[in-house]
C-alpha cells in the first residue's frame, strides 16, 4: 500500500483521484489474485461475478472435473423426462469470455498463513483472497454398512454424475411391482425438498411404466418442508403409490445391508428392489482439513462478506457454510456468491459497497406439469442469516397456475445456468 504525501494528494483531483483509489490496494504489484476452489454453483458464480465487476482482479478457478452436472433437474432425468446431457455444463465460456484461468485439478491443502493452495498435481497457487466452495461430503460411518462399495449398489445420487445415471439404470431395469426405497438424512442436508421431489417424479415414471411399483420414504425426521403440498399432490396424482414413514414410526434408519439391498430401521428391515440411500452430510473434505469447519462439520462465516469466521482472507459460499435460515440450495449458493464477489471486489479495489440482497427461489416438481414455488429473502441479523420475507404456493392453487410454474421452472434452469456458467 502506498501512502500519499500531502502534496501528491493535493495534486490529484476528480477522475484521477477516483482511478487512483480504484486501483488494487497492492499498488505497484501485479493485479490482485483471487483463487476460487470448486467450480460448482457457488464457486463458478463467484468467479464469473468477480471477473465482470473488477478488471483489476485476476481470477483462477480450480475444479477437477471438465464439466459440471447439475443436481437440480436431475430428478427429471431420473423420471425419464430429460436427457442426462442437458444437465451438463462446461467451463469454456468462463475461460474464453470472462478471462478466468480454469485449472482442472483438485485442491489438496490450504495454507492460510502463507496464502497458498496446494494442488494435487504438485503445483502451488498464491492468492490475495481465497474463496472455497467445495459443496458437501458424506459423513463417515453415519449409517452402518453404507460404504463406497454399498454406494455402487444402493446409490445416493446426491452429487450429480455417475451416481445419478446408476440410479436411473436401476429404476429402468426394476420389475413392475418392485419396491423403491428412499432414505432421507437428518438436517441439515443439501436441498431439503429434493428427496420428496424425487419421490414425486419417480412416481410419475412408475405410473407410466410400472404402475404396480411402490415407493417407500424412510425419513430421519418427523416432518418435512412443504409437507402439505407434497402430500396433497401424492393423493391427487399417485394414490396409494408413495408411503412416507417418519422417524417416530420406524425409530430411524440404523444400517444398510447392501448384499440383500435392505434398509434396517430400529423396528424392521425393508428389502428393496431399488434403494436410494442419501447419507448424512457435512462440508466438503477440503475444509475439514483446512480448519475452516467447526465441530458441526460446517463452516461459520460472516453473513455480509462470507469471510470465514475461523481463517481471515478465506471466504466460503454454498452448501459448505452454516447459512442460518438459508437452505443448502443452488439458488442460495448463487446469491451468496454474488454478495461475496462484490465484497471481495470492494476490499481489493475500493469499489462501492451496497447492502447485499440474498434470496432463495425454488421451483419444485410434484408431477411433470405440476410445480410449486417459494421465495424467501434473507438479511444478516445479529451475525446470522435470518429469513425476513417468505412466500410459498398454496395447496388450493389451480392446475393452470401449477402448469405455469412447471413452465417457468424450465425458463429458470436456462437463465440460471447461464448466470453461473456464462
Amino acid at each position: 500500500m502506498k501512502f500519499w504525501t500531502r502534496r501528491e494528494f493535493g495534486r490529484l483531483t476528480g477522475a484521477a483521484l477516483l482511478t487512483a483509489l480504484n486501483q488494487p490496494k497492492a499498488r505497484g504489484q501485479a493485479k490482485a489474485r483471487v483463487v476460487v476452489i470448486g467450480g460448482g454453483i457457488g464457486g463458478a458464480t463467484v468467479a464469473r461475478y468477480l471477473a465482470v465487476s473488477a478488471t483489476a482482479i485476476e481470477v483462477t478457478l480450480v475444479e477437477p472435473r471438465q464439466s459440471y452436472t447439475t443436481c437440480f433437474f436431475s430428478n427429471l432425468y431420473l423420471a425419464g423426462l430429460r436427457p442426462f446431457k442437458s444437465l451438463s455444463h462446461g467451463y469454456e465460456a468462463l475461460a474464453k469470455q470472462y478471462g478466468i484461468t480454469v485449472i482442472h485439478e483438485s485442491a489438496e491443502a490450504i495454507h492460510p498463513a502463507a496464502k497458498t493452495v496446494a494442488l494435487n498435481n504438485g503445483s502451488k497457487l498464491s492468492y490475495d483472497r481465497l474463496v472455497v466452495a467445495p459443496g458437501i461430503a458424506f459423513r463417515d460411518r453415519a449409517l452402518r454398512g453404507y460404504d463406497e462399495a454399498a454406494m455402487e449398489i444402493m446409490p445416493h445420487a446426491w452429487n450429480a454424475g455417475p451416481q445419478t445415471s446408476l440410479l436411473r439404470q436401476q429404476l429402468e431395469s426394476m420389475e413392475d411391482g418392485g419396491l423403491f426405497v428412499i432414505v432421507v438424512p437428518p438436517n441439515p442436508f443439501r436441498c431439503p425438498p429434493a428427496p420428496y421431489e424425487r419421490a414425486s417424479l419417480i412416481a410419475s415414471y412408475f405410473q407410466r411404466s410400472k404402475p404396480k411399483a411402490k415407493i417407500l420414504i424412510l425419513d430421519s425426521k418427523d416432518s418435512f418442508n412443504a409437507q402439505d403440498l407434497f402430500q396433497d399432490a401424492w393423493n391427487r396424482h399417485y394414490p396409494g403409490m408413495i408411503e412416507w414413514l417418519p422417524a417416530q414410526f420406524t425409530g430411524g434408519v440404523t444400517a444398510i445391508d447392501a448384499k440383500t439391498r435392505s434398509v434396517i430401521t430400529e423396528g424392521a428391515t425393508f428389502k428393496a428392489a431399488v434403494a436410494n440411500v442419501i447419507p448424512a452430510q457435512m462440508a466438503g473434505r477440503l475444509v475439514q482439513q483446512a480448519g475452516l469447519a467447526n465441530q458441526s462439520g460446517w463452516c461459520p462465516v460472516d453473513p455480509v462478506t462470507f469471510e470465514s469466521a475461523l481463517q481471515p482472507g478465506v471466504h466460503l459460499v454454498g452448501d459448505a457454510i452454516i447459512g442460518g435460515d438459508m437452505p443448502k440450495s443452488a439458488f442460495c449458493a448463487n446469491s451468496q456468491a454474488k454478495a461475496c464477489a462484490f465484497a471481495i471486489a470492494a476490499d481489493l479495489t475500493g469499489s462501492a459497497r451496497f447492502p447485499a440482497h440474498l434470496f432463495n427461489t425454488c421451483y419444485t416438481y410434484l408431477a411433470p406439469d405440476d410445480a410449486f414455488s417459494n421465495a424467501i429473502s434473507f438479511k444478516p441479523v445479529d451475525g446470522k442469516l435470518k429469513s425476513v420475507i417468505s412466500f410459498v404456493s398454496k395447496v388450493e392453487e389451480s392446475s393452470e397456475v401449477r402448469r405455469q410454474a412447471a413452465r417457468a421452472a424450465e425458463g429458470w434452469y436456462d437463465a440460471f445456468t447461464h448466470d453461473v456458467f456464462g
Partner: protein
Amino acid sequence: MRPVARSAIATGLVLLVSQSGAAAGADQGAQLAATCASCHRLDGGGTGIPSIIRLGEERLTNALLAYRASESPNHIMHAIALSLSDEEIASVARYVAAQGK
C-alpha cells in the same frame, strides 16, 4: 495544515464525492441486476420466464412497484420487490433498461 493544501484536498474530495455518486448509482444497479439474472436472462434470450431488458425504465419501475404492493399475481416477484427500497427500484430499473439499448 496550511490553507492552500487544505483547499486542494477539499476540491479533490468534492470531486470524488460527486463522481463516485454517479459511478455508485450504476454500480448499485449492476449489483441489484445480478439478482434478476438468477432467473431472467439479461442477454435477451430465454423462454418460460419473461425477458425484462426491453421493457424500458418506466415500465420496469411500475412493474416492480406493483409487485411490491401485492402478492398476486406472482409471489416470487412480490418477495423480491418487497426487499427493495424506492431508490433501489429506481437504480435497478435504470440499469436493466440500459441493457436493452
